[in-house]
């Protein structure tokens, strides 16, 4: 007798339980997914000309165009893209950011980049340390040299006219030798 009573009650309770857990069993997406394999050429890029004025310093081992995500902050945390190398001693260098990509960073995403420079280094091996680099030229918007120009990259477009002048006789202001973190 007790078994029959229990079975009926049990079936009823199972139904109550299932109704109550329905809110838990709502469907949801699958969370993170594998990134898709990139297909087709991406033309998102920028291009321009670097002009060198004066005699090149001796001992330069590499010269690159470097894009940073924060103004006047030259360090690995803000480094976004590298173009080069620019041959030693040239007076002009025409570039396209895809064709002349150094290869260390595969792609520059669409967005705004407030610090685009030409940087030179004398170290035998490639170094990411700030103190191993000198800024030879800075990109300014249409001759306004008060502040570094902002490079605006749009998806699927080629931005032209990103020209930089490197005047070895009149070098630009150097960013801090070591970025002073707010908490230092």
């Amino acid at each position, binding site marked *: 007798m007790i078994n029959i009573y229990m079975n009926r009650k049990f079936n009823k309770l199972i139904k109550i*339980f299932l109704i109550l857990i329905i809110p838990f069993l709502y469907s*949801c997406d699958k*969370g993170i997914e*594998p990134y898709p394999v990139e297909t087709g050429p991406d033309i998102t890029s920028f291009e321009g000309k670097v002009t060198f004025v004066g005699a090149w310093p001796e001992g330069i081992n590499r010269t690159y165009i470097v894009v940073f995500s924060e103004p006047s902050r030259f360090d690995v945390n803000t480094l976004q893209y590298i173009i080069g190398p620019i041959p030693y001693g040239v007076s002009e260098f025409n570039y396209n950011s895809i064709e002349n990509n150094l290869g260390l960073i595969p792609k520059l995403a669409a967005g705004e980049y407030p610090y685009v420079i030409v940087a030179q280094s004398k170290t035998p091996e490639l170094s990411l340390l700030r103190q191993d680099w000198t800024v030879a030229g800075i990109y300014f918007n249409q001759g306004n040299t008060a502040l570094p120009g902002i490079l605006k990259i749009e998806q699927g477009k080629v931005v032209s006219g990103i020209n930089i002048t490197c005047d070895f006789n009149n070098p630009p202001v150097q960013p801090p030798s070591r970025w002073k973190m707010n908490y230092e």
Partner: protein
Amino acid sequence: MNNIMKYIFFAAIILLSYNFLSAQNKNITGFIFDKDNQPLNGANVIISGTNFGAASDINGYFEIKNIPFGIYDLEISVIGFKKEKIRNIKFYELFEPLRITLRPESVETDQIIVSAGKYEQRISDITVSSVVIGPEIFSKKNIVQLDEALRYVPGVSVALEQVSIRGSSGYSKGAGTRVFVAVDGIPIYTGDTGEIVWEMVPITDVERIEIIKGPASSLYGSTAIGGVINIITKKAASEPVTYIKTFAGVYDDPSYDEWKWNKSKRTFFGVEAVHSSRLNNLGYTFSIKRFDNDSYRENDFKKRLSGYLKLDYDIDVNKSITFIGNYLDMNRGNFIYWKDSRNALIPKDSDRDQTVKSDRQFASLIYKQKFSDTFSGEFKSSYYRSNFEGIGIELTTATSNLFRNELITTSKINDKFVIVSGVEVSYADVKSNLFSSPYFLSASAYVHSEYKFSDKINSTLGLRYDFIKLDTLAGANALTPRAGLNYKYSDELIFRTSFATGFRAPTPAEVFTSADAGSGIMVVENPNLDYETSLSFEIGAIYQPINFIKFDAAFFNTDYNNFIEPLLTSEGNIQFVNLPKARIQGVDFTTDLILIPGLLNFSVGYNYLWARDINNNKAMKYRPRNTVYSSLEFTPYSFEFRTDLRYWSKVEEIDFNLTKPPINLIADGENRAEVIVVDLSIGYNFVIGASPFKIYLNGKNIFNYNYVEFIGNLSPIRNFSLSLETYF
């Protein structure tokens, strides 16, 4: 799979061999009363896992007839009263009718807790937020490691194996902790990295787990700046009891074809045995555990063997001594980061075949003496040796020895006034090619008082002094005061508030680690690392309008100075640095509901956290802003059904620079999502021969939701396990 079958067969042989007792039958009788000694009519009395049962009559009397002799569990339930379970009834010794008293069903608010003041207090009297977890969760969810259970506690989060209370820690690869994790009040962090090795927690001997949310440095010192998790172990059984558990499980296929890396199913299994008894004044418990996990990821296997021994000896009614010894031997793969999001279950090429071998030994001694009704003392001494070898391209080794002694006195001046005071000394030495070979010394003294102004108002006041010397670093001194107030507005509504200061010294690993992190990134030492301090405030309330509902809510604010976090420096190195100002604010809200007394319980907890680096005005890393935990439990007769939900909002701030070129240490590491995990558990209690059994089927992450708790580390995919346990 062969191994699993072997284990199941082995376990079945062990379990069944104990189950042949007498074939004689007998009646079992008894009376059921309420707490006022009034007989309860209509209470169901069932022998767990059988069809044997009866209901009590108007006199509270019941009789179950023709029961084979044996050892049984008896379940007694009636609407409005808490279901009672009487374990291990030796029916062949039972001649007198049983007398059973049932308590009214209610959500417990008056549990005893020792971690808030280092002496026994009621939760309703304390001035800080706390949670108490019972050991049942380990069986119900087939939990083999404590951090798995902590993942379901509101206000507590676990990223990989690093625990954080109210956002006190982000993720730092096991270097340092801000939560004081202890066994019977004795901390179990290692002497080198200061990490918690969860496998060392003896979960088969847990009576309860007490969690204090918020800074407790004024009582527990440096590592308690974020809170306390204190594991209280059981007293040895008065009669010989042996408990055996075995389980086996399998991981499902991953969600995407790209992630399939192995043709066969990945499995895990384990077996553990515990025996506890008492010989006159000596109680003893010992256990041995074996756990093998293939893992759902390549080179992420884990094999471990552990042993545990606890002896408690009552010298006389006023003196006792307890020894706890624990040993762990582990061999595991070293999966550090995924290769990329298309290869989420295989490690980076450079990390392939890296393994870690470790062994750990922990021993502690607790001597208690009651000098009078008002004055008692406790001496705790412990030793923790940790040794690991990381085997990869280079061999990394670390061996640390941590010695600790603490003397605690408790003075009950009168019914209203209690003073707890103590002194503590600890010393650690480290030998390693990762952290050089530093030593660590700390000495401290504290006093904590509780004063009851009236039945409604309770206050606490505490102060601790710490001196800490870490090798070549200058010695540091810290004073950490604390104050709190508890106000019982009514029987239903209790308010609490507290101010606390916190202090945390950097660990040897945070200061001295010097190692290659891969991809040309070095972890570099920082001998200038300063200790961090905090000031926190909390106000909260418990509201229990009726026995079946309990609400607990709290607002908290903690301001940190010199907060220690790992950071990618401008030189491209990872280094632990001090953030000058950080603030963590938030609210906790939990509610426990008994929807059908004795049958259906529901609980939900919500936590909002706003943790930010003040100077850089951005969120702190690896801290979800919103978390929700809920569980629903249904226990009809011998069945148990349970479902758990865990939700984290998407973590805002991570180490973005490590996830993209030029560093690109963790390819696609920014690929993350909110966390929505649902678990399901079904259990059944039954009897074979004379022994009670429990069988649980657990489905974890049943929707196979893909998420990361830390970048480049896909969390466990859907898996199922079957566990079987018995005791005799």
